[in-house]
């Protein structure tokens, strides 16, 4: 199984844990991820507010144009990147006029994109291509009894509704968590927004949104939160303390990328576990499974 891989900016900074674990897990599952050479920022959900959707999508398309020659599905880890690349790709496939004009712009950089590729979220690729059975077989350290809140977040499932799961009440992640031997907790907020890129400009939004998510996770008795999204992971991890300060709560719920949990369950290298990157320390909670390393 070969794929083009688009890491995205956060993977090189705030979400290195995601990158490490994705690479290790993919390898373990026999997926070869080929990074798109000289990829650029997709613009996320921010850039279009300054330069408009079209320009942002053309920027994103540059990556697809480069990837097209490789003729492989483009796999994305970051939800926000997935959103912008998937929507861009959809427009190239469905909107002829857009494709023509956008290619006129790409031509300025000597590029062209036909819209031949599929853009996919890593979570979906693990489940649909590798398959839950394969995942279950790989488990060497079953996460028995670990209560995990599967926090898919918003953009992964709503980029293209029903593309691979219910946009409001996704279940993919829960199935995966169960495949690892852990228990997926009841978690109504599993697809609600964490406040996304407002951390800097409107911290209150992030704090308030996170608070609700912690409350919901705690109510379900979750010990850890697992997510595919760097933005969600950052907000929930970095601002958990802040939430407690501002709201007199005392949540202590480590927030991990689902790929980190997979790395542990698969008994891959501790480098792949990348637990040091967690601000809310997961060591105690995970002790029963990380023993010996």
């Amino acid at each position, binding site marked *: 199984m070969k794929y083009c891989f688009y890491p995205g900016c956060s993977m090189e*900074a705030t979400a290195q844990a995601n990158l490490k674990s994705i690479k290790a897990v993919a390898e373990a599952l026999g997926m070869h991820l080929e990074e798109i050479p000289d990829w650029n920022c997709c613009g996320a959900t921010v850039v279009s507010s300054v330069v*408009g959707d079209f320009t942002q999508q053309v920027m994103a398309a540059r990556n697809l144009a480069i990837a097209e020659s490789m003729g492989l599905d483009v796999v994305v880890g970051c939800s926000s990147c997935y959103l912008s690349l998937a929507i861009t790709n959809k427009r190239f496939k469905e909107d002829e006029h857009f494709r023509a004009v956008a290619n006129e712009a790409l*031509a300025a*950089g000597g590029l062209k994109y036909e819209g031949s590729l599929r853009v996919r979220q890593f979570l979906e690729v693990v489940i649909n291509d590798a398959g839950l059975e394969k995942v279950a077989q790989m488990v060497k350290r079953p996460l028995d009894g670990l209560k995990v809140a599967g926090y898919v977040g*918003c953009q992964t499932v709503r980029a293209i509704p029903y593309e691979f799961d219910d946009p409001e009440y996704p279940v993919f992640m829960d199935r995966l968590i169960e495949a690892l031997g852990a228990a997926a907790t009841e978690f109504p907020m599993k697809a609600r927004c964490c406040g996304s*890129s407002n951390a*800097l400009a409107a911290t209150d939004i992030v704090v308030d949104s996170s608070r609700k998510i912690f409350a919901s996770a705690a109510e379900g008795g979750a010990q850890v939160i697992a997510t595919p999204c760097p933005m969600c992971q950052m907000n929930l991890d970095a601002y958990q303390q802040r939430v407690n300060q501002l709201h007199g709560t005392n949540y202590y719920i480590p927030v991990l990328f689902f790929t980190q949990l997979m790395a542990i369950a698969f008994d891959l290298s501790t480098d792949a576990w990348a637990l040091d990157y967690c*601000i809310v320390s997961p060591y105690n909670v995970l002790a029963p499974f990380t023993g010996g390393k």
Partner: protein
Amino acid sequence: MEQKNTLTEPVKYDLSFAREIYSLENGYYIKQCMQCGMCAVACSTREIMDYSPRQLFNLIKLGKKEEVLSANTFWYCTSCCTCKARCPRGVPLVDVMHDLKKYAIEQGYDQYPQAAFYKAFWAEVAGRGKVFEGGVTARYYLIRGLDEVKKALAMKDVGMNMLKHKRLPLLPPKKVRGLGDLKKIIHKAQELQRKEARA
């Protein structure tokens, strides 16, 4: 939650503003709004929005330019796409909100901190082809000015934690090699975008 509703004095309907908004990249779709109110409930930041998207679209229809452009609605949009996924009329609300942010900035309604963040973010991407948190933050505070820095200090514990856990590289990532081409592409895209808008 009590939505802001300052319309005490009678409204005079005026379509000229609406037509301007409808002509934005995704503005066309606003016309399809049937005032059902799904978006008001879907929104994850609805408690702090002064107008729900539905109300905002209504204000546009009524020609209330000032209320619309000074509303916090689109600035507080987190692009979570819930409204977009639910809208029974297929209005891509997130994209519409992007248009409104852009329009507001162009019209000088950029007092909201998000505006600064977006500008900072864009400056980073335009200059490097990739985003560097450190750079974005720095530029953000440059734009916002000193008093904002006080807030920053209140936030420093978060920053420290990030650093401690190797999440804030001090050095920016390598520039995109094809940055020159990328810039050409963006330049061309902007030009075409303006042409498309006129067409």
